[in-house]
């Protein structure tokens, strides 16, 4: 998977044309409101809203699906752990095996895991319209306009830039290993090789960082990254934000007053 989240920034859609500052701010608020949801029915509603926004971007859904792999890796195990570990309360439905009575499966745990998963997926899907519909630097510059400290902006920009350098370094080194007939096995040699590999990668990255810093100093860098970009919010941008805010109120209202399951 290539890490360039802004691969589709050139597409034209209502989300692409949305002012980056308003877009990021609005979608962050939406993400927070999704995280506050208590009912699985509302969580399904949130997923629907996220998919709807994603569809509006015209970005292929497969691109976003790949990003869900990481979420599934972290949240997926909840489906196994939570039904087994959630403490039983009155009204819970519990299944158990006749021969393995200590193994109780609580359906409330399953629903809890599903709610966490749905919320996580909805939020992760939102990152694509949030940062994938403008060039990454413009999105990050928008964060600066939203008063995010310059040091964080610099860290984000340089981290993003150096993911690619790190990956190419990684590819080069693993190719060099393969060319010398290295095949991983469960032995001390493999462990030692991977240790050396990671160590060299870190040392190389450090040296590279130092060189980059020297290049920056040579071009007058004084510790603050100066960014020049003109953002202009139009009435349409506020309208788009207000639509999302209506959705946010809808989510909160439905979650509070319509007791779903």
């Amino acid at each position, binding site marked *: 998977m290539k890490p360039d989240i802004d691969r589709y920034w050139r597409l034209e859609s209502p989300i692409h044309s949305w002012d980056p500052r308003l877009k990021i701010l609005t979608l962050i608020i939406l993400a927070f409101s999704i995280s506050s949801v208590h009912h699985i029915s509302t969580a399904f509603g949130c997923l629907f809203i996220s998919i709807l926004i994603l569809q509006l971007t015209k970005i292929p859904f497969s691109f976003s699906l790949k990003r869900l792999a990481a979420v599934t890796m972290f949240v997926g195990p909840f489906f196994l752990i939570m039904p087994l570990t959630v403490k039983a309360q009155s009204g819970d439905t519990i299944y158990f095996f006749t021969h393995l009575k200590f193994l109780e499966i609580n359906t409330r745990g399953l629903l809890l895991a599903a709610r966490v998963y749905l919320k996580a997926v909805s939020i992760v899907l939102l990152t694509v319209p949030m940062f994938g519909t403008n060039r990454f630097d413009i999105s990050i510059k928008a964060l600066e306009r939203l008063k995010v400290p310059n040091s964080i902006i610099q860290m984000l920009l340089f981290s993003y830039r150096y993911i690619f350098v790190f990956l190419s370094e990684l590819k080069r080194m693993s190719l060099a290993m393969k060319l010398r007939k290295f095949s991983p096995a469960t032995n001390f040699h493999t462990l030692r090789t991977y240790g050396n590999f990671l160590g060299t990668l870190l040392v190389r990255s450090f040296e590279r960082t130092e060189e980059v810093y020297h290049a920056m100093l040579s*071009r007058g860098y004084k510790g603050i990254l100066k960014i020049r970009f003109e953002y202009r919010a139009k009435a349409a941008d506020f309208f788009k934000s207000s639509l999302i805010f209506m959705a946010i109120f809808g989510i909160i209202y439905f979650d509070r007053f319509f007791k779903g399951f």
Partner: protein
Amino acid sequence: MEKKSPIISIKNLHFTYPDGTVALKGVNLTIQEGESIALVGKNGSGKSTLIKHLNGIYQGDRGEITVDGLPVIEENLQTIRGLIGMAFQDPDNQLFCPTVYDDVAFGPINMDVDEMALHKRVQESLEKMGLMDLADCPSHNLSFGQQKRAAMATILSMRPKIMIFDEPTSNLDPKNEAVITEIIANLPYTRILISHDLPILYQVCQKVVVMDDGRIDAIMSMEDFITNRQLLRKNGLDFTFKCDCCNGHNHEHRHNQIEKKSLSF
């Protein structure tokens, strides 16, 4: 006749790395405005360390440096860094912004160049390097040759008085090498080139400074240098090349008298 003051003056410069490696052992050098200097020597002879002292990236343990009359001290660093454009060996280290345009604009923005002038400078630099079409492209998507040119554009936009190139043609194919060489050869600045590529040095530089073990070993004209086989060999620069010499015949030997114009590499 009024004596012209040098644009770079280095007096008795000593430098030791934090790990104890002595890199420079009393370097003395003066460079006049408009000169093109080839800084040559074996790997580890102190060339790159020396140039990193010129704009204060490294601070010497002893000795003094002046650039355009300004001592290289903390208070003058911003001015001096505006006077010196430095292109590093690996262009990837020089391109750290999200797009080529941003990278080229990085220097002038730090020099507080106003918006209109900034855009003009960036456009001119990109145009000179033939990168106008790639202005919005992320730097990491460029080919190596394009990266080299983009790295040069980043320093051109600063409009420095002195340009320093560290191995400008290394790892380039002959076509890109020729393009870069021609660009460097036509730059109207004081130039310092570090390279092991003798043809480009010969084409661009009139004077050679040979470094060995942290010291200046010799300063001589380019003609004297390329005819001094022993010195070339001593500094790991010995070479054999075919040239169309004065009579137009191809052969692999050294002429005692070389007519510069008739050489082509």
